[in-house]
């Protein structure tokens, strides 16, 4: 292997799968970005909802009306979490398709943590149901227990993204793979932590915006369901959360950018992030207007805010993809070359084989009983018992009766309980069986010049490793 004096030096250069993609690479990548954003939208709402719900339930210990609000938020989580999971499969298929080598390698290197996603998410979901359906029964003296259950689910929801982030991050830096020993050591690669806080804050902002619309919409009977609140008040509360979380992103966003390893930074990335930032500032401006708006006017700009917010998410999602592409470009090229190189070796070897060259003694040349006997040598030796009677013994039974050997080999019975039963060799066909039967009788008689060779090759104690 050539020494690679670049950003990817030290990276393994494996071969890719040889099968072609079922659709264009560009199309898969578009599908990946779009489907991923649909998935992460519900993940954000699931995590944000869970955090809000626990936080408000604790506040509810002192001010009862927050307990009702917390409960109404908790009711949204079970729907959002189901959609988050089911929508995760599409982008998973796409990323496996187009980053097969990088993604699966990262999965493997964080293997225990990667697998633990399955039980951990299951437990988080069951705790979420327990939290939701015990709200009435676990009031009063068991309220604390109820909050702990909600908190435990929340804790799991907050922890699990680390595994995904670690994988999505680790796949970008093959030059670090040899240092990784599971999840915790992989957290040191790239910039997992800034990305985590960026993601978490996005969850808060998005959930704030979602709930401003959820409770603020005309069809929601605030008077019935949350009589201690009124609609403009709820709108304002969740607008504020979205507003402050988006301001916090002005810190976390640049932090993610400056901590990104240099290898994938490109001008396109800066242009995209710059455009995203401009629109994010417009979102902030609109949010501040909404918060200050009168009870009558608040909510009028909601659809517009969501549209711009969606644009920011789409642009940042694309930026993230652009970074991934340029970060992996060099390594992907090397992998492609290695794959091609192997492919040409493989093709050349196949052609030589087809032309009858390069065949070892075992397969090449005319068919002989000796060659066919290799199928038998795992259990039969000339004058020793391996896992079956010796050839000498076979000879004593089948002397002058090669047809008997053929018949037995095609449909063996079981005479000796001390040995494992013999498998049938009918698939070898009569021609080969006839050859091997003659060979067995020749060797078994002890009169052949070959006998010594067989004994040697079958009972070597120290195989020659240097051949």
């Amino acid at each position, binding site marked *: 292997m050539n020494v690679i004096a670049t950003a990817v030096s030290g990276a393994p250069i494996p071969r890719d*799968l040889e099968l072609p993609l079922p659709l264009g690479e560009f199309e898969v990548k578009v599908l990946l970005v779009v489907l991923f954003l649909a998935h992460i939208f519900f993940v954000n709402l699931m995590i944000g909802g869970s955090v809000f719900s626990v936080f408000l339930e604790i506040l509810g210990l002192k001010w009862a009306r927050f307990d009702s609000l917390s409960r109404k938020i908790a009711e949204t989580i079970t729907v959002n979490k189901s959609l988050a999971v089911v929508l995760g499969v599409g982008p998973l298929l796409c990323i496996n398709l187009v980053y097969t080598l990088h993604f699966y390698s990262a999965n493997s290197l964080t293997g225990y943590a990667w697998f633990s996603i*399955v039980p951990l998410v299951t437990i988080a979901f069951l705790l979420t149901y327990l939290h939701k359906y015990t709200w009435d029964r676990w009031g009063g003296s068991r309220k604390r227990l109820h909050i702990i259950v909600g908190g435990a689910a929340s804790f799991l929801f907050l922890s699990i993204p680390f595994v995904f982030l670690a994988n999505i991050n680790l796949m970008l830096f093959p030059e670090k793979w040899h240092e990784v020993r599971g999840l915790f050591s992989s957290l040191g690669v790239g910039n997992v932590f800034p990305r985590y806080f960026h993601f978490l804050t996005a969850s808060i902002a998005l959930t704030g915006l979602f709930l401003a619309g959820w409770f603020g919409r005309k069809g929601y009977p605030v008077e019935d369901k949350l009589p201690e609140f009124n609609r403009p008040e709820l709108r304002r509360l969740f607008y504020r959360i979205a507003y402050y979380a988006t301001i916090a992103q002005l810190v976390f966003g640049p932090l993610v950018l400056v901590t990104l390893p240099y290898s994938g930074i490109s001008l396109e990335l800066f242009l995209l992030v710059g455009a995203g930032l401009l629109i994010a500032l417009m979102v902030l401006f609109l949010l501040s207007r909404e918060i200050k708006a009168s009870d009558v006017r608040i909510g009028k700009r909601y659809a517009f805010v969501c549209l711009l917010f969606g644009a920011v998410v789409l642009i940042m999602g694309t930026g993230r993809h652009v970074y991934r592409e340029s970060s992996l470009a060099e390594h992907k090229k090397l992998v492609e070359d290695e794959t091609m190189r192997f492919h040409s070796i493989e093709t050349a070897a196949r052609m030589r084989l087809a032309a009858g060259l390069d065949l070892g003694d075992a397969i090449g040349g005319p068919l002989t009983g000796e060659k066919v006997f290799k199928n038998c040598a795992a259990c039969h030796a000339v004058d020793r018992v391996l896992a079956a009677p010796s050839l000498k013994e076979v000879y004593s039974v089948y002397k002058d009766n090669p047809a008997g050997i053929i018949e037995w080999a095609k449909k063996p019975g079981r005479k000796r309980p001390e040995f494992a039963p013999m498998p049938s060799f009918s698939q070898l066909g009569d021609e080969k069986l006839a050859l091997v039967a003659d060979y067995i009788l020749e060797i078994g008689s002890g009169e052949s010049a070959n006998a010594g060779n067989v004994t040697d090759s079958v009972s070597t104690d120290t195989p020659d490793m240097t*051949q």
Partner: protein
Amino acid sequence: MDFPLFFLDYFGNRLLIAVVASLHVFINHPFAVGAYPLVVLLEWWGWRKGSAEWDNLAYKITRVLFIITTSVGALTGVGIWLTTALIAPFGIGSLIRVFFWGWFFEWLVFISEVILILIYYMTWKKLASGLHKKIHIGIGVTLSAFSWITMVVITAILGFMMGSGKWPETQSFLSAVFNPIYLPQLAFRTTFAMILAGLCIWFMLFFFTRKAAELRRKSVRFVAIWMLAWIPLWIAALAWYWSVVPDAMLANINVALLTQKFMHWHETLGIIMAAAAGVIVLTVLIGCVTPRFLPRVALLIPFVICVWLFGHFERVREFVRKPYVIADYMYSNGVRVSELPIFQRDGILPYATYVDNHSVTSTNAADAGRDVFMIACSRCHTTVGVNSVIDKFQDLYGDGQWDEGAMSAFISSMHNTRTYMPPFPGNEKEANALIEYMKKLRSDREPIFGGQTAWSPKPSSKDNAD
């Protein structure tokens, strides 16, 4: 196989996916495919009778179904993707390239199913009367249909994956339907899901109705009649399935040892099937005649027998596939059929990225053998745990000294004598190195760790492979 390999020693990669996939099937079949039509029927019955307590019972059962299917059910389903990524990245990666649109379609059906479950459960109290109730029951019927369609699609994909030799030529989904085992398999799964669902819901009735209540008697009888109605179809499907198993198995296993074992096993399967059917019929008849007679623990007996039966059923399905992960294209250890000759000529180590030793020398035999084990054997075998490679040799060569020549002969011909095994993908030196490692492993019984904890190649240690 050019991935850092995740390896779970002792327990085994194979068992890991078996646990996740079986759990998924044991949730999916009774609690989704079978239970939704039954619960919709319960709802419809209650509505026809104008019985609020009957409706409420159906609602309580739906809550359990909703919680289980959207947590354990959904996560074990996604878990199959996450687990196969670890145990066979080359296999699942290639399969996704071949069956992308099939899985994409299945995913869309799956999304619809989950959305319908959410709607069905959450609108139960809102859509409570008159036309609303009719709509609600309509949603339930649609949900039941989608739930079944996911099974139809995924069974087709599984059948297609295993259909030997079809894919390279036809590349058509129709081959799935012509897979000898597909239709009987689907019939068996469907009817079995209905019966198991009856059993599970019957069990729930003990918790949601009082023993003395009239509702208990009526609902148990209702569920028992549901099961009774499916029993003839189920038995017909069992018989159909049992009759095609030999075709499917024997087409893939041409070795008489296995044939003998199989014949014995096929008889056992027949006995288990007859026993399961007998116990179910008896249970159902008791349920119809004296609904209050059986206690809840008694239901565990038919349930356990069914689980056992189903285990056998899934084993057949898996066995038909071997030694391939994709029929005639890739072996279960990730070696492609077309690259086998160069590995047998040059060895596999020179072409492997994630190993410490790229060739066998006079000093590294056991270590190189361990690398060979990792690449060639570790997808199915552990060192000394479940399906241990040492135990396999022990069975053959016993407690004394193992003959290296015989072991070498075994390695080079095992695919002829045990046709579920792929051919050894290495040269003679590597086979001998593997034997050295087996000898070492036999004495020190030291487990090994996969890429998730221990992969540490020296950077640029890969030799030029020419």
